[in-house]
C-alpha cells in the first residue's frame, strides 16, 4: 500500500473511475480554473484544479470534455448534473463548499432525489455531489458548516462523510459507481492527513460502520474530523484503564444501525460527537435510535457533544470554542463512566 493524503486519495479515485468509465465527468467552477485552461494572459494550464487543489492534474489528463469548468452558478451545476445523470452520464459535480447547497438545493432536494420515486422506478440518477464541510479554517459562517444532517433527511439521497484516506478513496469510487444520487462530504481539515491507501481501485460499501478503536466501557460515535478527536481521547484514556470504542458510521444515509447498536449493547455507555448541529442534527438522530432500540442496555444517559446553536464564528478563538473539542469529548466520556 502507498501512503497518500486524503486529498490525493480523492483525486486518485476520480482519476481511476474517469479512466475506467467515459461517462464519468467532473463539473464545477475551477475544477480546472483559468477559463478551462484557455485564459489568454498568463495561462498556466490548470490555474486552480479545485479551490483546494484536489482535482489538479485531471484536466491535463482528461481534457475539457471530461473536466468541465462552469460559471459559478450552483443551480445550473447541480441541475445539469442531475439532467445528465438521468440521461446516461455519471457526473461528479463539485459545490466547492457544501454550504452553497443553500443556493441550489432544489435540483437535489426536489429533482434528483425524487426522480426514481416520482417516475415509478423508471429512472435512475447516478450523480455525485462533492463538497467541503467542516470548521477549523477560520472560513467563517458560510464556508464552515457540516450540513450532512440536512441532506440525510431527504429520501432518495445517500450521504457519505469519510474520515480517512483509505475510506475516502473506497467510498468515492463506490459513490461514482452507485446508481443513486450521492452527497459526498469532504471535511476540509482532513485533506492533508496521510494514511495507507491501496493503489488499485476498490470500493467500500455504504451503510457499513468502521470501528476505529475497539473497547468495552464506552462507545463514541463520530464522523469525519470528529473521528480523529475521538481516537485521541480513546488512546489517552486507555492508559487510565478506560476502554473506549470508536464507531465511525462513514455514511449517514444509509446508516449502519446494527453496527452502532451492537457496540452500544456491549458498552452501555454512549457519547455522540457531531459537528452538524446543536438541534435536530446527526447526534440527535443517533441518540433517538439508541434510546428507541437499545434503551435497556444503557447504563448512563447518552451525552451529545455538538457545537452550540450559533453560526460558525470567524475568529480562531471563537471558532475553537465552537468546534467540539478533545477536552469536551474526554469530559463526556468521564461523565458517562460515572453513570
Amino acid at each position: 500500500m502507498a501512503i497518500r493524503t486524503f486529498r490525493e486519495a480523492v483525486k486518485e479515485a476520480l482519476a481511476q473511475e474517469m479512466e475506467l468509465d467515459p461517462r464519468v465527468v467532473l463539473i464545477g467552477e475551477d475544477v480546472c480554473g483559468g477559463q478551462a485552461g484557455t485564459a489568454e494572459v498568463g495561462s498556466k494550464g490548470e490555474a486552480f484544479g479545485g479551490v483546494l487543489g484536489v482535482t489538479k492534474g485531471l484536466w491535463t489528463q482528461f481534457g475539457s470534455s471530461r473536466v468541465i469548468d462552469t460559471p459559478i452558478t450552483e443551480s445550473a451545476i447541480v441541475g445539469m448534473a442531475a439532467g445528465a445523470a438521468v440521461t446516461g452520464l455519471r457526473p461528479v459535480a463539485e459545490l466547492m463548499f457544501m454550504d452553497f447547497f443553500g443556493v441550489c438545493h432544489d435540483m437535489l432536494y426536489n429533482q434528483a432525489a425524487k426522480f426514481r420515486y416520482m417516475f415509478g422506478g423508471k429512472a435512475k440518477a447516478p450523480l455525485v455531489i462533492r463538497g467541503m464541510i467542516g470548521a477549523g479554517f477560520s472560513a467563517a459562517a458560510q464556508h464552515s458548516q457540516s450540513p450532512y444532517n440536512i441532506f440525510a433527511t431527504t429520501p432518495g439521497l445517500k450521504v457519505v462523510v469519510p474520515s480517512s484516506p483509505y475510506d475516502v478513496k473506497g467510498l468515492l469510487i463506490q459513490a461514482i459507481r452507485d446508481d443513486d444520487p450521492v452527497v459526498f462530504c469532504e471535511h476540509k481539515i482532513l485533506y492533508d492527513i496521510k494514511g495507507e491507501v491501496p493503489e488499485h481501485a476498490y470500493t467500500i460499501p455504504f451503510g457499513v460502520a468502521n470501528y476505529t478503536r475497539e473497547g468495552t466501557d464506552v462507545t463514541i460515535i463520530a464522523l469525519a474530523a470528529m473521528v480523529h478527536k475521538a481516537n485521541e481521547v480513546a488512546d489517552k484514556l486507555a492508559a487510565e484503564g478506560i476502554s473506549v470504542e470508536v464507531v465511525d458510521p462513514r455514511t449517514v444515509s444509509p446508516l449502519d444501525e446494527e453496527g452502532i447498536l451492537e457496540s452500544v449493547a456491549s458498552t452501555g455507555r454512549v457519547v455522540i460527537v457531531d459537528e452538524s448541529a446543536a438541534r435536530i442534527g446527526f447526534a440527535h438522530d443517533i441518540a433517538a435510535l439508541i434510546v428507541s432500540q437499545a434503551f435497556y442496555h444503557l447504563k448512563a444517559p447518552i451525552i451529545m457533544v455538538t457545537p452550540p446553536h450559533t453560526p460558525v464564528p470567524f475568529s480562531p478563538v471563537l471558532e475553537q470554542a465552537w468546534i467540539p473539542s478533545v477536552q469536551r469529548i474526554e469530559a463526556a466520556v468521564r461523565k458517562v463512566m460515572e453513570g
Partner: protein
Amino acid sequence: MSLSKSKLLQAYRKMREIRVFEERLHQENTTGDIPGFIHLYSGEEAIAVGVCENLTDADYIGSTHRGHGHCIAKGCDLHGMMAEIFGKESGLCRGKGGSMHIADLSKGMLGANAIVGGAPPLAIGAALTAKTLGTRNVAVSFTGDGGSNQGLVFEAMNMAVVLKLPTVFVFENNGFGEATGHNYAVGGRDIANRAASFGMPAVKVDGTDFFAVYEAVAVAVERARNGEGPSAIEAVAHRWHGHFEGDPMLYRADGEVERLRRDNDPLQIFSKQVEGQISAEELQAIDDEVQAQVDDAVAKARIADYPSVDNLLTDVYVSY
C-alpha cells in the same frame, strides 16, 4: 417550409389529442375522482406539438406543472397518462407521480415538473449527455412566462451558452403565472429579448400558429444538432383554463376566455391553414378516433386498480 400530408395529419392528431384529453379532464375533475390538482393546457397545443414534431424519441424534453400537452406531443401513452392522473397502478409512473410528474424516459420525456423553472437546468444536463457522448440529440426545456423570472432559468441559459450545449429554451408565454399577469411580473416584458441577452439567438413567435412554432424550432434544433449551441423561443399563446382546475379566474375579464376560444383556437387556425391539403372529413375522422381513444382511456383508468400499499416503500433507491 412544406410538410408532408402525413406529417400534417400527425400534427393535427397530436393537437386534437391534447385538446380532447384536457377538456375531458376538465369534466372528470368535477366528479372528485381525480386526486390532487391538475393544470390544463388547452389553448397552447400548437406550442407543444410545434416543438415536438421536430424531435425524435432520442431527443429529450423537460416540462412544467402544465405538462400534459408536452407529454402527449412527445409520445407518452394516453392510457398510461390518464391512469397516472387517476392515481392508478397502471399509470406511467405507477401512481407515484401524478399529473405534475408524468415522465417516460423511453420517449425522451424527462418529466412534468412541479417546480416553476425546474426544467431548464435539467434539460441542459440532457444536452450535456448528448454533447459528451456525441449523439447529435437535443434537449428542449419548456418554461412559462412565470418561470422565465426564475434565477435558475437564467443560470441554465448562461451555462448553455458558455458550454455551447445542444438545447432549446422554449418559453410559453400564456399571459399568466398562476393568477399574476405577465404584464405585471415580467420586468421588461420581452422574454425573447431577455434570453437573447445571454448570447443566443432568440425569437418570439405566435404560439397559436403551429407552423410559426414548428419553423422557429426547426431552425433552433438544427443549430443545436450541428453543435452551434442553444437558442430560445418565446411562444405567445393563451391559457383557456384557470391556473389549476377549480380556479374561478377572477383575474379574467368577462367574456375573455370565450373570445379566446372563438378567435385564438390553435386547432381552428391550423384547420384553416391546411384547407385544400386536408379535407374536413379527414380531420373529422381524426377527431372521432381521438375522442374514442380518450373515452377508452378514461373508462380504463376508472376501473384500474390503485397501487398496492406494498409499493409505498419501493423505488426510493436503486439499492439501499
